[in-house]
């Protein structure tokens, strides 16, 4: 017979630590898996993502096909793993476009004087009046559908958010002592910009970009889902969901698993972004 033993204070604390760290650990593990899948999908899924096998069409999840097969008998698990690269690439590229453009606009507004600030401020405000997907759809109608336009569209629609943040940061930093100190030391404008202002905004931008990648992936996959981005049979998560929609009644696995990959990616980005934010000492 074992005696009833209450946990010691230290054990309780450790358990609490685990409870609060668990999301972070899961997110990190997921991120590593994603990175492996993106760089070397063959390690996690040796098969071909586009190999068809009509005899095996619509096979439900089993030991042979853990996530089932699609309408042409392609293995859903293999396609998800191989889809990580394209899906992440679009998300990262879109974030880079948005971040680059937003930073440029923000720096211009924060440093370029009143006229530039006004012009950028108004432009950003106008773009904010075109919520969410709307701006992206406008870009698509002007440029045409496809993976590259979709990436540009998502990037452009995220730029106003970054621009607003950078502008606020720059104005805040300009008011601090060290910019003045650099000026007193006789440093030129470019040097102050490159050595003082940009490094000080970088940390917050990193946080925001981490959070933003998840969102960019959702938007890009939404465009693919709507048939405006990557087209099947290319293994991309949004495109897979687009294909799965037709067979929702007969093959739930074609929809559930690629979607879980997207949701997992966003959650990982969110959790990691927040952890970064805490380390950076708070965003606001």
């Amino acid at each position, binding site marked *: 017979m074992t005696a009833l033993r209450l946990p010691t204070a230290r054990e309780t604390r450790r358990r*609490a630590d685990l*409870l*609060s760290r668990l*999301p972070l650990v899961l997110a990190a593990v997921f991120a590593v898996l994603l990175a492996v899948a993106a760089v070397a999908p063959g390690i996690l899924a040796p098969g071909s993502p586009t190999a068809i096998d009509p005899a095996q069409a619509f096979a439900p999840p089993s030991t042979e096909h853990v996530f089932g097969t699609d309408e042409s008998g392609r293995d859903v698990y293999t396609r998800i793993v191989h889809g990580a690269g394209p899906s992440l690439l679009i998300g990262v590229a879109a974030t880079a476009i948005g971040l680059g453009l937003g930073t440029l606009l923000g720096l211009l507004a924060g440093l370029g004087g009143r006229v530039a600030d006004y012009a950028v401020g*108004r*432009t950003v*405000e*106008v*773009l904010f*009046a*075109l*919520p*969410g*997907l*709307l701006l992206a*759809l*406008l870009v*698509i*109608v*002007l*440029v*045409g*559908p496809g993976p590259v336009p979709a990436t540009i569209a998502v990037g452009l*629609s*995220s730029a106003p*958010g*970054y621009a*607003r*943040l950078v502008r606020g940061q720059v104005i805040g930093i300009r008011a601090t002592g060290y910019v003045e100190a650099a000026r007193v030391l006789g440093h030129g404008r470019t040097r102050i910009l490159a050595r003082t202002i940009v490094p000080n905004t970088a940390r917050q931008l990193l946080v*925001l*970009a981490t*959070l*933003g990648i*998840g*969102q*960019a992936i*959702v*938007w890009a*996959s*939404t465009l693919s*889902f*709507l*048939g*405006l981005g990557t087209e099947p049979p290319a293994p991309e998560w949004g495109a897979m*969901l687009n294909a799965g*929609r037709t067979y*929702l*009644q007969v093959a*739930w696995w074609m*929809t*559930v698993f690629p*979607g879980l990959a*997207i*949701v997992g990616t*966003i*959650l990982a980005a*969110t*959790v990691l*972004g927040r952890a970064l934010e805490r380390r950076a000492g708070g*965003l606001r």
Partner: protein
Amino acid sequence: MLWAVATIVFVGIRLVPGDPALAILGGPGSQASAEALAAVRAEYGLDQPVLVQYGAFLGRLVTGDFGESYVLRRPVADVIGAQIGATLALAAASLVVAWAIAIGLALVSTGRSRWARSIGGGIETVAAALPQFWLASILVIVFATGLGWLPAVADGTPAGVVLPVLTLAIPVAGFLAQIMRESMLDALAAPFSLAARSRGESETGLRLRHALRHAAVPGVELSAWAFGYLVSGAVVVETMFAMPGLGRTLLQAVTLRDVPLVTAVVLVVALAYLVVTFLADVAATLIDPRRRDAETGDRPAPTPRAEVAA
């Protein structure tokens, strides 16, 4: 503001590679004759100088004339007029449901029990992360295909609206609950909460009567953003559930590159967004009397953190 949106749209249209006249006649594949192209150019004023076209474009917008859809061959204003009601009703219903869920979640996730906080917070994060198009599919799989409780498409019955509204409401509820939780925790730590507790107010009463009102302000401010999110979400949801509305019309127009229709929908949504932003401002002032005296500066409405980037 609207003028600025219109100008950006106009410039955008002019930047499009390709001949608009050709697009009207059905794109490069249509092998339109030179005479037909010239006739279309004259009809749509495309042979005029750009500035004249710009002036005419603005003039028509002021009088509510958005031109004629390339594809449907109907006045764009008619097309939008026929569709906008359904989408606004859908967005409004979803916003109400989202608020109800968000208040519930915020109350749970600011609760006293550690587990309630963790689980409530987790649900909020997951809900906010769900892509609408996937959520819609999952709801259909579970409630339509699996359980057979609700129809998989909006068939015009009240039951058919449940899944579309839930699809739109759940992610918004996640965002709303997150932002409400933050200000609710602030409120619970504020001196007025201590005062209420010392008066013998129960924890539940404190949350319902004092903290909720405090938390509602950023939530209301966020509602303008949420409305925009709902309207652009309508593109996905109306397509998924085969519902009539502006979103589905917009997607079709984008797919067929029907520029006048897309332009008009974008302008109408921008207008609606501005109106809702104004309404949200008014509502926030009504809830929080302190704002009435405060100077109304250029304070940006709050956006959820993930969304600031996106």
